[in-house]
């Protein structure tokens, strides 16, 4: 049990500090595994708990500071809008409802997953690029300014193609400047214009009327994308964004769900389809043999971890929102901007800074042109579509 508690603590750290991913922490700790008081099973539970907690906490910097990662990128805009209306806590609460909901749903429907997931994996795998191509066409055609939408999509897509065809950095590190540039910095730069302080953040946020539809959509999208090779929560988020309800509250619930279920299912896939679907799952595969009893332990562990993480996320976010209301918002934005640039320089060097500047320029275009911000997700979509066509 101590490993699970430590995993939750580590997940709080990786979730709250932008740029630290559980994969990075797990690989770092694995190299010192002989010094740690964990056996392989304990270490597996530790990183599993850490990864799951991370999916809850990572919405706090994304919503309050505009510092996202690939899986939370699309929450920046609705999250920021909620924040500027004094409803930042409500945005965090909605993602927590989604996260907790999908874990409960996965636990209840696990017997069904035993049969559904292997069939889903072999059935959809060859066609996923076609699905993403359909989403891309829909994203462009649903805009009023189609030529500009096409340009914004292709620019972000080419950016992704260049970065991912020969990655100079490990992907978890590379994604930090990419998504901070595409989604984080443009939001922060625009925030510098005008507003000098944040409105009082409402603490009356405990409302999510009938969230099960949104939880179900997030669960399904996260499940499909979490299990397919080369895809993940970020692509699932695009699907939910384009095909889910346009109501921002439902979208935030689904997004919270997508992130958590993709992380959970990527590890359960070790048993269900005998393949790891995330960096954390790859490490767990090397540590333990995942049998049926261990899968049951992991499912119960996910219930425990998500229950505790949900409470921790709300308590930490509540304290953070009260703190933010008391200080100059312009100063906070400036400090966060400098922090993100320095962190990028520290983690990824001059190459990362170049990626950050390019990403910010591309990320500002949809805002200036009055387009949806999700075009920035073409950074991952286009390389997968090109891969499906055999061009990458």
């Amino acid at each position, binding site marked *: 049990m101590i490993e699970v508690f430590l995993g939750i603590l580590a997940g709080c750290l990786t979730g709250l500090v932008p740029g630290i991913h559980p994969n990075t922490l797990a690989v770092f700790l694995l190299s010192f595994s002989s010094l740690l008081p964990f056996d392989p099973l304990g270490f597996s539970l530790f990183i599993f708990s850490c990864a799951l907690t991370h999916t809850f906490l990572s919405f706090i910097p994304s919503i309050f500071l505009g510092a996202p990662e690939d899986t939370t990128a699309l929450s920046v805009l609705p999250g920021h809008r909620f924040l500027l209306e004094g409803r930042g806590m409500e945005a965090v*609460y909605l993602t927590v409802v989604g996260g907790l909901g999908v874990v409960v749903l996965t636990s209840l429907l696990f017997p069904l997953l035993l049969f559904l997931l292997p069939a889903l994996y072999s059935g959809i795998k060859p066609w996923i690029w076609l699905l993403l191509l359909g989403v891309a066409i829909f994203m462009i055609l649903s805009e009023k300014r189609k030529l500009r939408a096409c340009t914004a999509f292709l620019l972000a897509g080419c950016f992704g193609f260049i970065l991912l065809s020969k990655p100079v950095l490990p992907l978890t590190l590379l994604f930090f400047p990419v998504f901070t540039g595409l989604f984080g910095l443009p939001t922060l730069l625009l925030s510098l214009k005008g507003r000098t302080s944040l409105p009082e953040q409402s603490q009356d946020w*405990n409302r999510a009327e009938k969230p099960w539809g949104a939880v179900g959509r997030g669960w399904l999208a996260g499940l499909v994308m979490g299990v397919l090779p080369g895809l993940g929560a970020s692509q699932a988020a695009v699907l939910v964004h384009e095909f889910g309800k346009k109501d921002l509250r439902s979208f935030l619930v689904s997004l919270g769900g997508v992130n958590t279920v993709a992380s959970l299912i990527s590890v359960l896939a070790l048993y269900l389809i005998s393949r790891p679907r995330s960096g954390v799952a790859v490490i767990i595969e*090397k540590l333990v*043999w995942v049998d049926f009893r261990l899968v049951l332990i992991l499912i*119960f562990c996910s219930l*425990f971890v998500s229950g505790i993480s*949900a409470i921790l996320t709300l308590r930490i976010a509540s304290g953070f929102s009260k703190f933010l209301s008391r200080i100059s918002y312009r100063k906070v934005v400036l400090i966060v901007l400098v922090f993100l640039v320095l962190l990028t320089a520290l983690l990824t060097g001059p190459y990362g800074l170049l990626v950050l500047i390019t990403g910010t320029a591309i990320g500002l275009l949809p805002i200036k042109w009055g387009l949806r911000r999700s075009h920035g997700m073409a950074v991952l979509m286009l390389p997968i579509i090109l891969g499906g066509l055999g061009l990458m």
Partner: protein
Amino acid sequence: MDRFELLCLVVAGIGILGMLLVGWGYENAVKVGEIKDEMVGVWVKVCGNLSGRYSGENWFGELRDGTGKIRVVAFGLNGIRPGPACIQGVVESYKGELEIIMKRYD
């Protein structure tokens, strides 16, 4: 504490109860007969009767249980003795046969 946090605690309570019930006495050990080709590269724990001897700093032998036997190799691991034992290590394939590279000896 509001109703949602109470719900979170109930979910966490079910989780911890389930973990304790399902995990009671669980060792994540496999039988020798269950070790298959697709487990190459995977860390396993196996209990059985260990036989073999040291050659220099390295140990060569085999582990048997009621379901089969498998070759066991340990590089630079001290204190290994023949007899009943639980070992942990990585499954590897050597000259077409599966073996365990022992990393821990209990």
